[in-house]
């Protein structure tokens, strides 16, 4: 009996380990190619071509960029705090990678002997874990900025911290309205709810809008990239960083984008739900269904990544006072109103 349990557990652990490895690989892969997409789309939007020399259509450009970063000289400022200087980018990277664990990436594969969920951990408080870990992400910026022992970096780090704290509030408030509807914090339950009742964005358009704006701010993307304002703060918190430490910061930013796109897709756009199709009516093999739902999830994520890039190459950066005004005076009241109205409506409709 005991042996049987252990055998089961070791399979379970192996399965999860493979999934974790695949997820990390996927995150890196997507982040790499988001950088290429970013440069290509930036080029197209500015009537240019974008990088197209490394391989056909420039598809090896991310490898070239990564290789360049690896071989660059690594400089640690003498007056910096060495341990914290190293911890900054490491923390940014770790935090960016952890959040992808609770997101369901596709329909579970239901085999004859066992069911494999395409999700590392289906925790009861899934979305709260995402929020909690994303909040830790601010330490990556703070520690990096502080350890650099540079006034610009410190200023940028403080800006970044205040920005992230300010925008987490409306983000959480807009999320509450969603939670009223789904009634569960579990990510898989949220997707299942949307499969049955339609996507949340149909019922919560304002909530989604607020959530999206806050996600932009959380990822330090334009128009909210004040922590790395290159024209006023000399690249901000990663000014003193070079080589792959800088690469980790930049990479973490793209992984954050990827994960927040996935979170938005899961919360508001039905996750891996195939639109206009009832997954339960699927007759074919379970493996194909899993792959299909995963592809749909990736398509949604890609759409959001495109949206991120599109916005970046459209809007200039906000001024600091505009940022704070928008966060505290516009988004929080809007999110509160949205929450109250949806609560009232739900109460009224449910009696």
């Amino acid at each position, binding site marked *: 009996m005991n042996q049987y349990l252990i055998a089961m557990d070791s399979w379970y652990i192996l399965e999860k380990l493979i999934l974790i490895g695949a997820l990390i690989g996927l995150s890196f892969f997507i982040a790499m190619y988001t950088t290429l997409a970013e440069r290509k*789309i930036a080029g*197209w*939007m*500015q*009537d*240019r*071509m974008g990088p197209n020399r490394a391989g056909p259509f420039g598809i090896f450009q991310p490898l070239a960029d990564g290789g360049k970063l690896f071989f660059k000289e690594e400089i640690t400022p003498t007056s910096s705090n060495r341990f914290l200087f190293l911890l900054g980018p490491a923390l940014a990277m770790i935090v960016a990678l952890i959040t992808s664990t609770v997101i369901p990436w596709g329909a579970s594969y239901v085999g004859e002997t066992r069911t494999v969920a395409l999700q590392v951990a289906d925790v009861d408080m899934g979305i709260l874990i995402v929020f909690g870990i994303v909040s830790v992400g601010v330490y990556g910026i703070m520690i990096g900025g502080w350890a650099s022992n540079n006034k610009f970096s410190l200023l940028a780090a403080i800006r970044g911290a205040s920005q992230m704290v300010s925008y987490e509030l409306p983000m959480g408030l807009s999320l509450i309205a969603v939670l009223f509807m789904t009634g569960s914090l579990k990510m898989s339950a949220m997707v299942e709810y949307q499969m049955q009742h339609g996507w949340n964005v149909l019922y919560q358009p304002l909530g989604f*809008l607020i959530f999206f704006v806050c996600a932009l701010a959380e990822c330090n993307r334009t128009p909210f990239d004040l922590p790395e304002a290159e024209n006023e703060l000399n690249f901000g918190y990663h000014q003193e960083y070079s080589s792959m430490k800088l690469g980790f910061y930049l990479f973490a930013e793209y992984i954050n984008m990827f994960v927040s796109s996935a979170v938005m897709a899961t919360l508001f756009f039905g996750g891996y739900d195939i639109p206009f199709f009832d997954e339960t009516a699927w007759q074919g093999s379970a493996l194909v269904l899993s792959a299909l739902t995963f592809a749909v999830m990736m398509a949604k994520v890609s759409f959001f990544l495109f949206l991120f890039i*599109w*916005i970046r*190459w*459209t*809007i200039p950066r906000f001024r600091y006072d505009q940022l704070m005004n*928008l966060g505290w005076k*516009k988004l929080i009241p809007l999110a509160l109103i949205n929450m109250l109205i949806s609560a009232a409506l739900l109460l009224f409709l449910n009696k």
Partner: protein
Amino acid sequence: MQLTQRAKSVDRQPLTWLESIYLWNILKGMAITLRHMFMKKATIQYPEQQRTFSKVFRGLHVLNRDEAGRENCTACGLCAVACPAEAITMEAAERQPGEEQLYREEKYAAKYEINMLRCIFCGLCEEACPKDAIYLSQTFAPANYARKGFIYSKDELLIPHPITDREAYVKALGDRQPPHSTTHTN
């Protein structure tokens, strides 16, 4: 006091509420960038694809030869005098017996240098030359790693030999007519 007809008055009205949440204007901006994504690109893929220069484009200098492959230059120095940037230096030498197939006249340029960093590509040397010995081609000076690489010596400036290397000669001539009535002089 009105200084110009084109002055525009600045609208300093405070933002309306709709403007203050930026959303509408951001959407308008995003429509513009999306439109640009599908527009024709201005890029010219340089090494594979090159712009055509105008017929009067003044690029790198070429020291000309006649149809028999003899150098036209007599080292008279008129180009150097005409040059406003003082980019041209030369040394003259006398043609020895037996060198008639090399140089068209009794005097020739033993050394002929143009400093492409000084040169302003005005074409006055071409205008000053009485022997049709120098002209400006439709190529420009390529990049170089050292300053001294930009001082072009005679063998870099000379046009390829019209008999031994006909193809390169015609290419270097470009749109120019091959020199006429010079083959029969002397």
